[in-house]
């Protein structure tokens, strides 16, 4: 047993977490303005933007993967532009994975943030405007500090969702060891070659880590809610 554990390659896990970390970080800054706008606007275009940001939830990962491949490969204008002027390849490498993951996980960041921002007492925001504070200052000093549970949910769920993605990474990244072979892809390959021992070990690690992360979120959110309600 110990022999087997010694042979485990931790590279795919590291890669999964690195990808999830970077994606979450980038998505936070992309999603915050979108969620803030959606939570405050009364525009008739709101449902259109909402539908767009929610698309990755319903689309099969293959559709998303196909379009990302199609638009980022060096046969496309975008891919060609980056290749020619910056020498950056956007597919079948880690950069491509990050871009794909940002699309794939966008709704998981936007929706909890939007929900949190919508639940804030509007009078509180107005009290801040009346105090002479800009929308920007109000967002960072009043809105965000008062949606901590939603903020944590958004960050953790995005992180976890990116760790768990499979279809899109396989299409956009392939399975290049130490570059695009993330944990989920590694498990898929073990199953394909019928190496069930390693598939079990990898899957077991994934289940444990995911469960512990979610447990942490729910425990924190429960505590926050009790604090707001004045319970101990």
């Amino acid at each position: 047993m110990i022999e087997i554990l010694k042979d485990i390659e931790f590279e795919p896990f590291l890669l999964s977490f690195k990808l999830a970390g970077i994606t979450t970080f980038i998505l936070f800054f992309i999603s915050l303005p979108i969620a803030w706008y959606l939570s405050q606007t009364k525009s008739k275009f709101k449902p259109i933007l909402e539908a767009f940001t929610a698309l990755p939830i319903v689309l099969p990962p293959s559709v998303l993967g196909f379009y990302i491949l199609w638009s980022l490969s060096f046969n496309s204008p975008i891919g060609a532009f980056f290749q020619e002027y910056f020498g950056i390849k956007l597919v079948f490498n880690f950069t491509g994975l990050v871009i794909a993951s940002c699309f794939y996980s966008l709704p998981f960041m936007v929706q909890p943030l939007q929900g949190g921002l919508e639940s804030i007492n509007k009078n509180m925001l107005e009290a801040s405007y009346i105090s002479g504070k800009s929308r920007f200052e109000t967002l960072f000093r009043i809105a965000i500090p008062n949606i901590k549970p939603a903020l944590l949910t958004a960050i953790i769920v995005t992180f976890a969702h990116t760790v768990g993605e499979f279809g899109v990474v396989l299409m956009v990244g392939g399975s290049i060891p130490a570059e695009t072979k993330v944990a989920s892809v590694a498990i898929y390959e073990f199953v394909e070659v019928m190496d069930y021992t390693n598939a079990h070990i990898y899957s077991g690690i994934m289940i444990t880590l995911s469960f512990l992360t979610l447990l942490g979120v729910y425990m924190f959110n429960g505590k926050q809610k009790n604090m707001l309600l004045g319970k101990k």
Partner: protein
Amino acid sequence: MIKIDINKKLHGANGEMDLNVNLEIKEGEFLALAGLSGSGKTTLLRILAGLETASGTINIHNNLWLNDKFCLPSQKREIGFVFQDYALFPNFSVLDNLLYVNKDKELANYLLKMTELEELKNRFPQTLSGGQKQRVSLCRALMNRPKILLMDEPLSALDSNMRTKLQNEILTLHKEFNTTTIMVSHDPSEIYRLANRVVILNFGEIINDGTPKDILLKTKGSQKFSFEGELLDIIKVDVIHVAIVSIGQQLVEVVVSKEEVKNLKIGQKVSLATKAFSPTIQGL
């Protein structure tokens, strides 16, 4: 001098309605806005605060806040606003709620001292009672030394003892800062104690404007006193009828004749007045 001449179409619970207000308010005046729910009081306050738009003009001490081409944002109006639900910032302590508006520590401490909140200045809003929260909210509204203080039913969520206490504090603060104040209120005693002018709105139009005494006192002619109430019940006792009337928080019994009973309907609004007797008044 504050000159307000605004118009806005409202889609309220009572259907479409035009809010049409033309008002001049002197500096330092304490004006109470009263009227039925849905008559446009809160909307008027929000328009003054820049939280809603309207057509027309608002001119404050010769500064233009609103006309057809221009609307000064809330951030630049230098107003204080006291919300009915306090709207305190839960992530800041009492003192920091005040300092968020303006970093003037001296003023913050002075206001907290005046409202007896000094001891609570490091507490967070969730741990305060309703009355304490509203006092913090009032102090916060005064932190930017506002040109106008707007209060939207500030005391309606509090019990009557706390209301009286806070009315006194509002009065003290008003005398101290002489801030022009507009307060939405439904409570005649509150209006009488605090305001020197009452404006009654009805379906978006001003229907009455004057001193609280002229507008709120309901006695007519030789009436010694007159109360409005709701007729709850008429009970037949032997040969007489007794009407039970609810006035304010109290129930009273009045003997009524057989003829009078015919003209009364249970549930209707009635006025109760007396002429012949001299009312006596005693402290409780």
